[in-house]
């Protein structure tokens, strides 16, 4: 176990084409903790992970497992961590050899390699693939092998870059659950990059929201996902951001200091006694959808609805609806 945080970043910057694509004043990951990095495409999530995993040159201070990283110790520090990417990137050799190679690089003795590799293939439910070539297994299986390869080296710190975004929904759900159990069982600290809120909520103790390379908000997963502090954070999390006029129309009382409020889509509803609005857009997702309603103030309010409800003939673009929100779920936000 490490005495201090598993990972500590201070004033970490990555510049590309003359501009900062990552600028993190301070960020830490406690030992055994899971921190999810959430943000829209291009926010710098993967850049943050690569810099923290010492795979990308970055200015500033990066302390990995209590040791400040510098040019001379990066390979050694990488051997105390493991990384799982979206692409499992298995080598062109048998699945078993893939894990043995990782163990060899981490200095595990030859007799122990095979036993450890078999153990972890079994734990990830892919022992039957041991003699198959890495390139011959399916995407979901390959990602299981990739996880087995990462855990087999017994890292104190694990980096995961959107590990399940390349697999189907069912496999993703199963793998997320298994990863959570493994992280808890092994006590491994993990930094996971994802754009999936529910994945972050399930896996992470804390969440950092990243926007344009900068942390917008850091905190306990539930707090960050339920109570965005800025407009950018609220918009990324799918909240509607309403100005004073809309708040008045919807009967939302602000504290007199803040002039904006964020409303999660599941806190808004169609209500005949509510404010008048016009359907702006109908968005269908997998199993659920959103109705975007433009209020008289010009603000848009998103309402979470089932796909069945969205099929109602009255809910077409341009039709008039009445909407209301649950005031207890409204979050006052700064700019």
């Amino acid at each position, binding site marked *: 176990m490490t005495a201090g945080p598993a990972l500590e970043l201070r004033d970490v910057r990555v510049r590309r084409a003359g501009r900062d694509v990552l600028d993190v004043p301070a960020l830490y990951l406690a030992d055994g903790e899971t921190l999810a990095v959430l943000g829209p495409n291009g926010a710098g999530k993967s850049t943050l992970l690569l810099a923290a995993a010492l*795979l990308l040159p970055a200015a500033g201070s990066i302390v990995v497992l209590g040791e400040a990283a510098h040019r001379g110790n990066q390979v050694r520090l990488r051997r105390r961590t493991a990384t799982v990417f979206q692409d499992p*990137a298995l080598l062109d050799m048998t699945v078993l050899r893939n894990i043995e190679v990782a163990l060899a690089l981490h200095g595990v003795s030859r007799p122990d390699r095979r036993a450890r590799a078999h153990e972890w293939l079994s734990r990830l439910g892919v022992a039957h693939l041991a003699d198959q070539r890495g390139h011959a297994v399916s995407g979901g299986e390959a990602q299981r092998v990739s996880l087995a390869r990462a855990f087999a080296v017994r890292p104190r710190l694990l980096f995961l870059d959107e590990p399940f975004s390349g697999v189907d929904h069912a496999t993703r759900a199963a793998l997320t659950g298994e990863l959570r159990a493994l992280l808890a069982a092994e006590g491994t600290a993990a930094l996971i990059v994802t754009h999936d809120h529910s994945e972050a909520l399930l896996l992470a103790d804390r969440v950092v929201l990243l926007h344009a390379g900068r942390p917008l908000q850091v905190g306990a997963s539930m707090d960050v996902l339920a109570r965005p502090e800025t407009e950018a954070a609220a918009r990324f999390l799918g909240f509607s951001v309403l100005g004073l006029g809309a708040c008045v129309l919807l009967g939302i009382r602000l504290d007199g200091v803040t002039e904006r409020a964020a409303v999660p889509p599941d806190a808004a509803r169609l209500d005949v006694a509510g404010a008048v609005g016009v359907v702006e857009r109908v968005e269908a997702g997998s199993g659920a959808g959103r109705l975007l309603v433009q209020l008289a103030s010009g603000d848009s309010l998103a309402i979470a609805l089932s796909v069945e409800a969205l099929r109602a003939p009255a809910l077409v673009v341009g039709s008039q609806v009445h909407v209301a929100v649950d005031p207890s779920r409204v979050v006052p936000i700064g700019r």
Partner: protein
Amino acid sequence: MDLIFDALREAVRLLRTGDGDVYSITARTALITGASTLVASLIGLPIGLGIALGRFPGQRVLLAIANAGTGLPPVVAGLFVAILLWRSGPLGSLGLIYTPWAMIIAQALIATPLVVSFAAAGVMSLPPSLHLQVRAMGAGTGQYVWLMAREARLALLVAVMAGFGGVVSEVGAATMVGGNLSGSTRVLTTAAVLEVNRGNFGTALALGLILLVLVVLVSAVLTSVQARVRRR
């Protein structure tokens, strides 16, 4: 038509009897081509890997030079080596001109850019995620290069085959620096040219056929190695 049949008959006779130094010329060709391919591989594969995997100033320029070198006319390479090794040239004191060594040097010069270019392209075509993954697994520089070379092993073998193909049928440089001396620097290609000039089409055809068989044999061996490597 008679000319063709006579030539074919003569070719078969020569192949059967081994007259006219056919087999010693063949052995010399295999030796010189093999040696130049080996030299080109020993030089070209590390350079190709270095260009593909390293980060250093002038990397792109080096790759551009190698790519341009794939089109290096053998006569130009031969001329360059001939000037270097000529008795009054900078390396004339070595006494290598008109020896098999001069032919190996010239052919290695022709094959090396091919090996570099094909090797670099093969390693560069590996997915970027693989580079990251191998480094993330804690590979040191040597381990990283070894694992990436292993991943690109088929491409590296193709690079060696390209180098061999570039020199086995080459005639310009071989004549220029070897001199086509009987029993010393005469190889299949230079001998075939000589026999055509003399009007001995049968002998030339026999030499051509042997060259063809040599190329097919070497390709077959390399292809079988390729298949075995693929299974490993």
